[in-house]
């Protein structure tokens, strides 16, 4: 059973299409993320679902009800904002009670449900405080409790974790996911952080320039990106300009610089097309020493340590530079600058995309 459906949903501001005919169906209890760079239309979609932005085209269904033209207060959704958007003049208790009071819940029932919601976000003792007396993480948990308390049909998140520092963000990711699984509540989560989207979601929709590029499980998004954009947006990509050298079935070869030719398993552009080549850092095998059969020879140009991994900038033929990684505890963790290395590339990890600024 579908909990939330977009039917050719579109939004234009004047001549500019910010969301172009997005259709998708989200199942009951599913956790779906919309992922994309800023300005890709993901927040506009969320605000259209909430009723805060009016769609130019298409329909939005919650369950089987067409809510496209309903005002936000009639949609029965919970929305958590990036800015928390707590009521600064009300206590934490009253913030959480706000939605319940609008649904005519009162007395002991109100008290019970507010306390339930606050307990869920582990803030049971904070009811009498005002929002300004809480830390950012606590304020965001109040915002989540406030959205959950009226038992909404769908929970919406608008980049809820981006104002939190890195460690707290990781904690909140786990806490949020546990909460969502426990309640089985259908969730639409908007973010520009691929880590957040991949780790929390059942399915991820990757968007660019108002177009849904791919809507699939995190595994598919990562391992089988549908477009060059998805490949370049997910993971840690090397992005170099080049061209399609030859086509052979679904794949072919791409050319970097004057002579460097790499096989690619899946290509969309015809031979001869100018493209941006995308190669994931983490998909490049790196070994010290001279290159053997099927490997690319290069030299270390720069080394940078980032904890669990070490990144190397490797200079190949024709001054083409690629970033490759090695585990920081392995044998290849401390190669000096100038030392020879061999790179192995999986053809399935080489993608091509139409360069920025040209028609996709």
């Amino acid at each position: 059973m579908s909990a939330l459906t977009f039917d050719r949903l579109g939004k234009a501001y004047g001549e500019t299409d910010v969301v172009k005919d997005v259709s998708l169906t989200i199942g009951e209890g599913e956790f779906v993320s919309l992922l994309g760079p800023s300005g890709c239309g993901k927040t506009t979609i969320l605000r259209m679902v909430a009723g805060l932005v009016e769609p130019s085209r298409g329909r939005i269904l919650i369950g089987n009800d067409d809510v496209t033209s309903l005002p936000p207060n009639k949609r029965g959704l919970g929305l958590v904002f990036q800015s928390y958007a707590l009521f600064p003049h009300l206590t934490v208790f009253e913030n959480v009670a706000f939605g319940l009071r609008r649904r005519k819940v009162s007395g002991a029932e109100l008290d019970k449900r507010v306390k339930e919601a606050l307990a869920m976000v582990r803030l049971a003792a904070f009811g009498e405080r005002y929002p300004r007396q809480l830390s950012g993480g606590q304020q965001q948990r109040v915002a989540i409790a406030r959205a959950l308390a009226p038992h909404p049909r769908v929970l919406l998140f608008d980049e809820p974790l981006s104002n939190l520092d890195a460690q707290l963000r990781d904690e909140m990711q786990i806490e949020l996911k546990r909460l969502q699984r426990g309640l089985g509540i259908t969730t639409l989560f908007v973010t520009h952080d691929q880590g957040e989207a991949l780790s929390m979601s059942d399915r991820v929709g990757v968007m660019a320039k108002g177009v849904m590029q791919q809507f699939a499980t995190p595994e598919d998004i990562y391992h089988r990106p549908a477009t060059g954009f998805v490949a370049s947006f997910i993971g840690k990509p090397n992005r170099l300009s080049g061209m399609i050298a030859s086509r052979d079935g679904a794949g072919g070869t791409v050319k970097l610089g004057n002579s460097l030719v790499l096989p690619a398993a899946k290509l969309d552009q015809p031979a001869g097309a100018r493209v941006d080549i995308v190669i994931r850092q983490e998909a490049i095998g790196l070994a010290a020493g001279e290159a053997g059969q099927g490997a690319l020879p290069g030299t270390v140009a720069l080394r940078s340590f980032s904890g669990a991994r070490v990144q190397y900038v490797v200079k190949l033929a024709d001054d083409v530079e690629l970033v490759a990684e090695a585990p920081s505890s392995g044998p290849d963790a401390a190669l000096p600058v100038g030392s020879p290395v061999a790179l192995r590339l999986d053809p399935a990890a080489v993608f091509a995309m139409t360069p920025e600024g040209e028609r996709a």
Partner: protein
Amino acid sequence: MMKTRTGLMLIAPLALVLAGFFLVPVLMLLPTSFGEYLPGSGMTPGVWTLENYTRIVTDDYYLEVIWRTLGLGLFVTLACLVLGYPLAYLIARGPQSWRVPLILLVVFPMMLNLVVRSFGWIALLTNRGLVNNLLIDLGLISTPLKLMFNLTGLMIGLTHIYLPFMVLMLVAAIQNVPRDVESAAATLGSSRIHVFTSVTLPLSAPGILAGSILVFVLTISALVTPRMLGGPTYKVMATVIYDEYMQLLDWPSGSALSFTLTFMAIAVIWLSSRLTKRWAGMA
């Protein structure tokens, strides 16, 4: 964080000018207000009295003027608030392209001289003024309405003059209410009216108070408009003070009234800032 010394140096020029040309002269009036005035011979040197003050709180005429001034301040403030809030809301939340023209329209009257504006109101409001003539010609009334030399006239004139101050304060306050917080209330089930009464209005309360204090204090101390629209008989504190000084030459009594007015203004500011703190503490 700025150092205290830097801060002091930044306010020093203004502080010196105010101390030399405002505070000292005002304080020089303080002894005068306890002096004794004899008609025809002026102040008696070396004689001190509280009579100037006791007269203000016992004399029926002075009491009437004080209550009238306070009432006028209250009514003008309320009128500015009621007329100004919808306009300020439109400027703050309406179409972007309306904002600059509307603000210009709000500010425009302030570019005209106060005397000219008050004369304009005289031309409109006198017994044979535009308003009364129009109403009589339309057959709506048979005798002219009394629109001048009374509370009505002063309220109309002063509301018009101080409305821009109120609107500008309210625009700033309403713009400071986060849109997300209003949207949050809407998604939680609030109708547009409930969003306004439960979020926008309380969160713009500090601006409402600030604008109200400003208009109230300006109104109770206004001189030119009350003199012109109030005429020789309908007096407020500022016009009475003017008469005591300039026409009766009773400086002690004028000084005492001045300090009473100042005290009232300070009391209102103090009370309101306490209220603001209580609200802003939550907001």
